[in-house]
């Protein structure tokens, strides 16, 4: 039955190039850093050797800023202060107070991490421009403090410190220092690339782009934001350690807020989110004015301010991003209505044996008792009782404003009950946060599908696997491998609205929850997609034994696949029962226009 509605293999879709050019950009970036870092020493040009030591440290900081800005969605205007903390930690401990170098290095990293924690703490609660102001304030205050605490930092006099061991030149005129400052941005770049491939990177991105989708996948957005700040700060602190021997002298003037703006602007000018962006950005924002305005130092801030403004208005994708957009446009387009094909998975599910009917209708997996939710004077839910059993497809219908979505939000923990309680698999969930409830085995979709454009179609599915409690069994893993081969390089921006919905549904299925909530899943689906969706939901219940709650205005669909239906009206349950019985219930009749379905 299910197989019949799924069309055969789609036509070939020749695609040129990969979904994104991250790998190529890492390769180019690594070459550029190695070239600029090592060539001046090989050629014996000490001016450029020295200049690029600083440039490459700045590039490493900008790479981390890029990660923080785009992958974790955190706008920080304070990374210059974090760099300063790392540098001052080392210089005060080892340079001024004669502690061993190892202790100084540790002090620098700890100081930077502490600065990161200052940013991370408010990040647990707030986001967006709030954090922009917190970090900017810190960058304003940092040099003021350095000046003020002169008994500790030597104030405006600064601290001179060199590490002679790093000046020795073991290979072909290249010093240890040059090797280190060349290696650091390369490592930062590779780490950024690796993070993007890893579940942690995906989690950060989901938390940044859609906090509620993140929580429904068991991700805590505040933790992700804070973790990103701490990671970026530790890395930036390490850059600060190298700043000391590279420059030889540190003072508050080296870490004014303008430095933080340089890192931020470099990411924007180079191209937000592009791995190569920070390299190109630092070259343009930092090197160009340094070389061409060498006599007109005071014009530098004006120049990079104007440059950034021009980029935001004229090339919002930045230099590298504009090339990447152009490359993506040249790739051939999507697969039309068959752009997302999941035969491999549906075939697998339909081959599974039915869940024994004895198990169906066992103890409810979800019990809601007396659920009440008020928004000011409005009572959205008024003492709702609601049960769902394993393997049951439970339709939830009612007019707009009857409380369907409110009930879903309460169950998934996105809003709190004012009265009543509910249990999932026998455990009380009433007071738990959304992410914790998701971990207990709840999955949901949203009225607008949460599909992430910066990831390929396969990566979007992988987000469900990331949240899965146990590894998939071999049969599923094989089906997934087929899906991956099909969609690893596909861009979700080419999918139709209906295909995005199906994609989100499959993602939730891969999370392997014991109960799935669908919020108006059929809205905007074509008739083929609707059949595909219905087949998938049936498989979920019959083959995998999931409990399904379906909020839907398409009553044909609900009456076609639901085992039980609950009707809500102004926050109350007015009817509940089998579809056939309910269709004759006077309380339900008016839902059908003209009563044609009665």
């Amino acid at each position, binding site marked *: 039955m299910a197989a019949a509605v799924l069309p055969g293999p789609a036509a070939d879709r020749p695609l040129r190039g990969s979904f994104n050019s991250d790998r190529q950009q890492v390769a180019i970036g690594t070459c550029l850093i190695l070239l600029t870092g090592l060539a001046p020493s090989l050629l014996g040009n000490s001016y450029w050797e020295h200049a690029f030591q600083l440039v490459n440290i700045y590039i490493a900081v900008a790479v981390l800023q890029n990660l923080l800005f785009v992958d974790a969605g955190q706008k920080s205007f304070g990374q210059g202060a974090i760099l300063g903390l790392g540098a001052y930690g080392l210089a005060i401990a080892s340079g001024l107070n004669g502690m061993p170098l190892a202790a100084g290095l540790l002090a620098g990293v700890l100081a930077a991490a502490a600065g990161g924690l200052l940013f991370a703490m408010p990040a647990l609660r707030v986001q967006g421009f709030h954090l922009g102001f917190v970090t900017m304030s810190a960058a304003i205050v940092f040099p003021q403090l350095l000046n003020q605490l002169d008994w500790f930092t030597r104030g405006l006099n600064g601290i001179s410190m060199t590490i002679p061991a790093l000046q020795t030149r073991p290979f072909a005129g290249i010093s240890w220092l040059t090797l280190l400052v060349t290696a650091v941005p390369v490592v930062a770049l590779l780490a950024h690339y690796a993070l993007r491939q890893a579940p942690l990177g995906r989690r950060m991105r989901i938390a940044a782009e859609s906090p509620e989708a993140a929580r429904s996948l068991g991700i805590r957005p505040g933790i992700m934001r804070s973790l990103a700040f701490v990671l970026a700060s530790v890395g930036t602190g390490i850059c600060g350690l190298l700043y000391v021997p590279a420059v030889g002298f540190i003072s508050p003037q080296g870490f004014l807020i303008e430095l933080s703006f340089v890192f931020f602007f470099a990411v924007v000018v180079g191209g937000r989110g592009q791995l190569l962006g920070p390299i190109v950005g630092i070259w343009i924002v930092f090197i160009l004015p340094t070389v061409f305005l060498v006599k007109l130092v005071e014009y530098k801030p004006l120049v990079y301010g104007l440059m950034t403004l021009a980029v935001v208005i004229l090339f919002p994708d930045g230099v590298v991003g504009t090339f990447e957009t152009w490359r993506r446009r040249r790739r051939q387009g999507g697969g039309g209505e068959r752009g997302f094909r999941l035969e491999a998975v549906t075939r697998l599910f339909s081959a599974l044996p039915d869940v024994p009917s004895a198990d169906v209708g066992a103890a409810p997996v979800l019990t809601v008792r007396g659920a009440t939710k008020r928004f000011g004077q409005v009572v959205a839910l008024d003492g709702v009782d609601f049960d769902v059993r394993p393997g049951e497809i439970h339709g939830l219908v009612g007019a707009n404003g009857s409380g369907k979505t409110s009930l879903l*939000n309460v169950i998934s923990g996105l809003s709190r009950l004012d009265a009543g309680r509910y249990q999932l698999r026998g455990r009380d969930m009433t007071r738990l946060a959304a992410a914790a409830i998701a971990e207990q085995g709840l999955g949901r979709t949203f009225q607008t599908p949460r599909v992430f454009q910066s990831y390929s179609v396969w990566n979007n599915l992988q987000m469900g696997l990331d949240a899965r409690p146990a590894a998939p069994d071999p049969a599923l893993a094989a089906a997934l491998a087929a899906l991956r081969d099909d969609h690893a390089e596909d861009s979700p921006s080419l999918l139709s609205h209906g295909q995005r919905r199906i994609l989100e549904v499959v993602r939730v299925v891969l999370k392997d929850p014991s109960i799935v909530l669908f919020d108006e899943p059929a809205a905007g689906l074509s008739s083929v997609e609707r059949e595909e969706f219905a087949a998938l939901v049936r498989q979920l219940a019959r083959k995998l034994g999931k409990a399904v709650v379906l909020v839907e205005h398409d009553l044909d669909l609900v009456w076609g696949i639901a085992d039980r239906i609950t009707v809500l009206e102004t926050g109350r349950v007015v009817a509940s029962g089998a579809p056939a019985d309910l269709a004759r219930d006077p309380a339900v009749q008016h839902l059908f226009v003209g009563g044609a379905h009665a």
Partner: protein
Amino acid sequence: MLGDLLPNLDVIVTIVLRGTAVGALFAIVAMSFNIVHNAAGIFNFAQGSIFLLGAFGAFVLADRAGFGLWLPMLVLVALAVGALTALQGWITLLPLRSSVEQDSWLISTVAVSVIIAASLTLAFGSQGNMVQGPLPRYTIIGVRTPGAFLLAIGAMFAWYVALRWFLRRTFTGLAISALSQDFDAARAAGIPVRRLQLLAFGVSGVVAGSVGFMVAPMISVSPDAGLRYVLNGFVAAVVGGIGNNTGTLIGGPLVGVIAALTAFYVGGAYQDLASLLVLVLILMFLPQGLFGRAAARKV
């Protein structure tokens, strides 16, 4: 011990007066933040520099021309700063028109802030300038008080009342208020959204620029001073609840008095640190501010 910590009446009056006067400026910047935030969902990071433009207006004009023309020059500078801010608004809103990118305002307003500070440095040098004011010193509860302090506190209340009247009683103001509820609905109702947002930018510039002009005698008129007002103005806005002008009447003076207390007990250089700590604590424990409403959850 306790006697040392509790200063005499003069000192208390000085701290409260100075704190309230400086805090009134933070409140003004916070109000001008709120106008743009409510109309366009944008937080203008350049608002401190725009406030400073008014002060530089006083430095360029008032000092040279004498006080007979003080009032017409105030109007002129306020309108000029308002026009510049509207232009900034136009630039800021450009990328939002077509693109799905909604973060660009954050970058462009920071860039404008840097551009203004850099231009002022090029034109006037980086040192602080002194400006004379039209008002003499007054004696309040035995404390000699610069007239600009009273001007600052008076301007805070005057602009609060004027903005309240504009936003609640005029058709244009009501339309701007409607924007803060729902952009799409406002557009569907035939409200010219973009024009009103530009007007909001302009009004925010008039508010900040006029007060910058008036209080120039009590502040250090130097290009990098804008950062101090953007930071403390934001703290005042957060303390009062973002978008809530009534809250700024408490938030501004509160931040100002905390800064004055810090200056007295710890040292003038620690005032911004104190504001930063207030900001972090408020965001951690009371993110809606003292008077803000909890934002509705989006799903």
